[in-house]
């Protein structure tokens, strides 16, 4: 499948009173057409900033994309003029935000918010846009769409609002949807519904999806490929199966050990990752995961391990990635 999005050596930094925060520090990945990619990592590891950078939504100042290229359909997004980037935003790449409760404007009706976007990007008339808005609400499973369009966001529950956000994201037939922790603010039963809905609709419409999450359950079930980020860098990348069953980075292993899994034997203890994520203003030359890693060796302090292929499509950034497996096997 052709490449839809290629991110090359993206670096996004924030200037703060405490120094420069390297929120995203040289990440490279790609997304194929119609593919679902998950970006995982703990809070503050740069997942959201990396995704916002794709649409140039980083507030500047204090944020700044200092290096890298983002190639979307053959064009470098970072070099486009503002009028062009606005056509891409919402039209070809749309976002679903974390907070459905506050991502819709409280003083505008749902209908107005849906039709406004379509009239802007697809050049529809008010009537056509209204018609399509009804269809969209039906698609995302909201009953009585005609009546619902005239209502305001406060008349919708959190799950319903996230459905509206999904309808909004799909409204202009984008090529890529970036969902920034789309289910974090919802309760567990609704989470599954929303994810199922997103997966079905994106598959049906052939839309690529980047899911940013810290929920590994989401990854295992919905993503084809997984990118694991730690402290602004990609530490491991591979298909969901590879990363889940055959992790080659200590951080990925730590993450997997810290969540309950149905596929392993019961009674296994959950092992939390010790320590805190590092201060992004004070990163040194070495591996940023080193202080929390039980496999750390002297070499780890000298330089950041390069991302190297393990077999085919899986890559990991660890000097001892080939020894981890043996180690784990002998331990269990």
């Amino acid at each position, binding site marked *: 499948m052709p490449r839809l999005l290629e991110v090359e050596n993206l670096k996004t930094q924030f200037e703060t009173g405490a120094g420069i925060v390297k929120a995203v520090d040289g990440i490279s990945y790609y997304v194929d057409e119609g593919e679902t990619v998950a970006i995982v990592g703990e809070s503050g590891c740069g997942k959201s900033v990396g995704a916002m950078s794709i649409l140039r939504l980083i507030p500047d100042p204090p944020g700044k994309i200092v290096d890298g290229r983002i190639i979307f359909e053959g064009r470098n997004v970072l070099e486009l003029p503002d009028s062009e980037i606005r056509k891409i935003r919402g039209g070809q790449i749309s976002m679903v935000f974390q907070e459905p409760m506050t991502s819709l404007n409280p*003083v505008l009706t749902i209908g107005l918010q849906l039709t406004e976007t379509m009239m802007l990007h697809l050049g529809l008339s008010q009537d056509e846009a209204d018609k399509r808005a009804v269809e969209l609400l039906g698609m995302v499973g909201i*009953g009585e769409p005609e009546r619902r369009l005239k209502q305001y966001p406060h008349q919708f529950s959190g799950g319903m609002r996230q459905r509206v956000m999904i309808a909004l994201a799909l409204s202009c037939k984008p090529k890529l949807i970036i969902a920034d922790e789309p289910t974090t603010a919802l309760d567990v039963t609704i989470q599954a519904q929303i994810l199922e809905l997103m997966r079905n609709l994106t598959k049906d419409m052939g839309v690529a999806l980047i899911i940013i999450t810290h929920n590994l359950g989401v990854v295992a079930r919905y993503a084809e490929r997984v990118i694991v980020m730690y402290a602004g860098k990609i530490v491991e990348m591979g298909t969901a199966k590879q990363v889940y069953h055959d992790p080659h980075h200590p951080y990925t292993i730590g993450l997997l050990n810290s969540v309950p899994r149905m596929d392993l034997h019961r009674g296994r203890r959950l092992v939390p990752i010790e320590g805190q994520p590092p201060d992004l203003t004070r990163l040194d030359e070495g591996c940023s995961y080193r202080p929390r890693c039980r496999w750390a060796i002297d070499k780890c302090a000298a330089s950041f391990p390069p991302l190297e292929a393990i077999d085919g499509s899986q890559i990991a950034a660890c000097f001892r990635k080939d020894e981890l497996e043996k180690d784990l096997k002998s331990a269990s």
Partner: protein
Amino acid sequence: MSTPQATIEFEDIELPKKPIPARIWDLCKRQPLGAFGAVVVIAMIIMAVFANVVSPYDPERADFANMLTAPNIDYWLGTDAFGRDILTRIIYGARTALFVGFACAFVGATGGLVLGVASAYFGGIFDLIVQRIVDVVMAFPLIILALAVVATLGTGTENVIIAITIPFIPQCARVVRSNALAIREIPYVDAARALGFSDSRIILRHMVPNVMAPYLIMLTAFVGQAILLEASLSYLGMGVQEPTPAWGLMLQGGAEEFAESAPWVPIFPGLAITLAVFGFNLFGDAVRDLLDPKLRTR
């Protein structure tokens, strides 16, 4: 196309709605002072709009046989030094006062609204420059600034409106900006940006409706202030010019000369100014209380 698993439907809970007169009565009981203010405001508007119907005489008709007569059956509030009916001139003066008041308040508050929201939305250098200009303008007392503008532009109703509007813009901009700053941080503004809307569309369509409450409060407060300022400027001879009937002018023509010999000449226009400003302020306070959910306790 696969159908989503669940379709959520629920009925709206419709609160039983009372008939409108009953709801107005409830509102009056909750805000008695506001209701009084509203009555004054409405009375003034009716007076101003139907001035030619309500008033007994022509505002510029001079009855030289009855100069400086005390209030009587023919002239309810007496006549001034030219024999002009004071009641008529007060009614027509309401026209001037309201026209200047609403024009200044609307232009000033709206200008401040756009400037304040834009300042909060763009932030950075733009915000810094706008806020420093606002600081400079706000450092002058209202009346001094208005006087300075009139001194530059000259007198007359239009210039008075400009003179009063200019100091209003930064006042409103400051209040609106602080509200808009909070709104800027709510994700729907970022969501609007992520949907590819232009800056002007986000400001006007998505942010402005969210700061309507402070805007309306500033607007009503400005009307009262503008009426007072217009009267002050006219009193100082820097505002509306004769023979246009204006309350400040009537005071000027009467206050010093006739305070003892014909007190009705200055008293009634003075009362009109007081009542109007008081009415608008009470009305504005009530609007603020009704729009602020934190104060809506009873």
